[in-house]
């Protein structure tokens, strides 16, 4: 169920502009790794590149021993990486059930898919009540739950989450983070991108700080929580 | 030297050259050759308008021949029914076609470019149907009895005026707006520029010169027929612009010259003409989507060949 993700020397360009400068990241098996950074630091670019939506100019992305660079995005999912993208990106005209069914696109085991759908509904009963509703009619929090649940439907070995707290009320965010932790404890490796550093570090084992496309710091999450410089920059003092 | 004076100097020089040729060369030239040259000139006028619309502004008009039809029939009607002399008829043809361009362009150009392709294509078809069903315009049998006035001199006077007009438009600040609309319309709009107005303007100017081109056809053989302005003529003009280079004025004009003269040379393969055009269009889009000259002008290319080093003008678009 779980795997290690290793990013080495990843450089990504948008035209002439370099968005990532030789980024190295390790996401250890079974743990939650938090990636912190300001807007525009390159967090989303990193996740998009891991998922194969962007092509790096150089560097490698490995899940266990399998190289992912060069694989099209849809094959990265088969390799065991699933992403809940920035801005949630649920399919608004499809129902909640259909969104979840598409999350299981790569799978052929109907019974397993049904069981996993029950599992997602068990985590978020509110989705269960709205299975036949179009995803576009859900609230922001519900859409975020759906986006994460949908990403879980492929039974990923590594789950990438891009800003799950974005634009949501604190109560809802707390619930979502609890669920992320629960999913991790069931054995899924998680790479969590967040601007809300405090929340992210609280559930994470490791933390990275990304600034203008380069890793500035890597440390155990607890250590980053106590780091004065990090507190000043990302935790509001 | 001042820009304005230079431009008038060039204009005077070119017109003098055109009329010099008309007076001293044409009378001693094989009429068959003159005929080809005049027909090339008429195509040049239509194509330079389309180069502005399609090449520079990025709006896919598929009914340019429809505007030629409007110009041709407006000119012919003004002469037959109101006694307007040919030179006035040419102006009438251009203006009426420009008006038609405004009517077609205004509702359509607000939307994404795809709709323009369909509407202009439909416009081309409707115009032909309307003319064919209009007894006053001669129906399918066409209009006859027009005065013959389209000479080498008149045609190329229009070509020179049209060419300089469009060139000046392109080097003006408005020209930058046209290209910005083509390259990224949303970004251009976010700068507070009224992109619809720019597109409509380009479209109206393009239609005007298509109308002039049609009027010249009306006064060339003393008769016109709806079948001269069918859809395949519009396609041919699109092929010329795409082939010559989107974002170039001289490129499409070169392509128009070659492609208008080619059928005369290659009579035996005339039936394959449209097949060849379509293959060339597809291959061009896949292999070299910017056309032969890309966004360069002939003068850039010559300059670069002369200097034998690259970078005469930036290719970044």
């Amino acid at each position: 169920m779980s795997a290690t993700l290793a990013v080495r020397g990843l450089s990504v360009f948008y035209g002439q502009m370099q968005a990532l400068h030789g980024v190295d990241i390790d996401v250890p098996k079974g743990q939650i790794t938090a990636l912190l950074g300001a807007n525009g630091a390159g967090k989303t670019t990193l996740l998009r590149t891991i998922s194969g939506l962007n092509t790096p100019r150089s560097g490698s992305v490995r899940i266990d021993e399998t190289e992912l660079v060069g694989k099209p995005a849809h094959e990265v999912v088969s390799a065991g990486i699933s992403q809940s993208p920035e801005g949630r990106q649920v399919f608004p005209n499809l129902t909640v059930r259909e969104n979840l069914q598409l999350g299981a696109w790569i799978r052929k085991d109907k019974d397993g898919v049904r069981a996993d759908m029950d599992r997602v509904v068990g985590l978020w009963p509110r989705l269960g009540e709205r299975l036949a509703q179009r995803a576009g009619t859900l609230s922001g929090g519900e859409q975020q739950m759906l986006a994460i649940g949908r990403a879980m439907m492929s039974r990923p070995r590594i789950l990438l989450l891009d800003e799950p707290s974005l634009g949501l009320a604190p109560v809802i965010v707390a619930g979502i983070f609890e669920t992320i932790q629960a999913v991790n404890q069931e054995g899924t490796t998680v790479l969590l991108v967040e601007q809300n550093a405090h929340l992210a570090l609280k559930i994470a084992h490791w933390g990275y700080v990304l600034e203008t496309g380069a890793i500035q710091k890597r440390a155990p999450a607890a250590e980053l929580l106590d780091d004065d410089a990090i507190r000043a920059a990302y935790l509001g003092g | 030297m001042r820009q304005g004076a230079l431009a008038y100097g060039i204009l005077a020089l070119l017109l003098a050259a055109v009329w010099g040729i008309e007076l001293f060369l044409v009378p001693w030239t094989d009429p068959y050759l003159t005929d080809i040259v005049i027909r090339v000139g008429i195509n040049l006028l239509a194509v330079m308008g389309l180069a502005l619309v399609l090449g520079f502004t990025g709006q896919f008009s598929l009914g340019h021949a429809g505007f030629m039809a409007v110009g041709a029939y407006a000119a012919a009607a003004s002469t037959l029914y109101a006694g307007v002399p040919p030179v006035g008829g040419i102006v009438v043809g251009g203006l009426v076609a420009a008006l038609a361009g405004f009517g077609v362009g205004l509702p359509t150009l607000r939307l994404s470019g795809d709709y323009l392709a369909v509407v202009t294509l439909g416009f081309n078809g409707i115009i032909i149907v309307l003319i064919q069903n209009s007894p006053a315009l001669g129906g399918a049998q066409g209009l006859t009895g027009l005065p013959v006035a389209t000479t080498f001199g008149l045609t190329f006077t229009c070509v020179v005026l049209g060419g300089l007009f469009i060139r000046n438009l392109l080097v003006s600040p408005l020209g930058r707006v046209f290209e910005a609309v083509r390259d990224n319309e949303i970004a251009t709009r976010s700068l507070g520029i009224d992109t619809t107005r720019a597109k409509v303007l380009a479209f109206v100017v393009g239609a005007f010169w298509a109308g002039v081109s049609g009027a010249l056809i009306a006064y060339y053989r003393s008769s016109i027929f709806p079948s001269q302005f069918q859809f395949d003529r519009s396609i041919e003009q699109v092929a010329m612009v795409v082939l010559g280079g989107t974002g170039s004025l001289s490129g499409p004009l070169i392509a128009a010259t070659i492609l208008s003269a080619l059928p005369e040379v290659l009579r035996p393969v005339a039936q394959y003409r449209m097949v060849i055009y379509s293959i060339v269009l597809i291959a061009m889009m896949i292999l070299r989507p910017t056309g032969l000259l890309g966004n360069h002008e002939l003068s850039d290319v010559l300059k670069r060949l002369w200097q034998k080093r690259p970078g005469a003008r930036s290719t970044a678009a």
Partner: protein
Amino acid sequence: MTLLLQQLLNGFSLGAIYALIALGYTMVYGTLQLINFAHGEVYMMGAFAALYLAKVSGVADNPTIPGAIVVMLGAMAFCAVLGMTIERVAYRPLRNSSRLNMLITAIGVSLLLQNLGLLMFGALQDFPSLLPEARWTVSGVMVRSNDLVIFGVTATLMVVLTWIVERTQLGRAMRAVSHSRDAAALMGIPADRIVVATFAIGSVLAGAAAVLVAMDKHTIRPDMGMTFGLKAFVAAVLGGIGSVPGAVAGGLLLGLAETLVSGYVSSTFRDAIAFLLLILILLYKPSGLFGKHVPEKV
């Protein structure tokens, strides 16, 4: 009253055909934001494929229901292969270039097929009856067996299509890809294969429409897809481009409008109706009758 009923019947019959072709435009537009100008020519080629099949199989000389079904299925299969080939050869290399370039390519493919058709088949050919034909007069209205065949085949195909789009994983993926190719790729959905499937399904419907029209009109021409295809595209825009029920509604509406105008006003303006409707809808409701968004995506 009888005349009106007759016009309505004819209008629905024509509209059903428009709807079948409009579906191909709307589905491809939904996934690629491309007006597939060549779709009308796929339809035309389907008619000539059916003619060839009817001659070779002997159905042309001995019209039977199974024979007609074989010819129709053959034409549909041929169109599917043709549609997928066009996508692979002409459109896929341009997946990342500008929409203008894709549009020009689509026009190029359309012209190529039309002119190849002209070279290969000549200006027009007769099309045989694939089925024994009959006509009845029901309280003054003439009902032809061909109308019933058109309604039956169209309704069947609509049901199958709706089932695919609404109830299968492929249909869900098609809707997902048309919303966002990136988001779909994150589900592991190979967008290119979904696009191919979209072309195949749209072309199959065009193939069926071609056989229905050919059986009805008894002549087929290399330029039959040009105007007819464009009108079907207009029908798709009327209903709201990208919307499957919209394409059906738009097709029926256009069919009715055309027959009513040629019945009560003048048949010469029949071909102008579609484009007048298009300009009106672009002016007043650019998203179409069933559309949700203004059709402006860049």
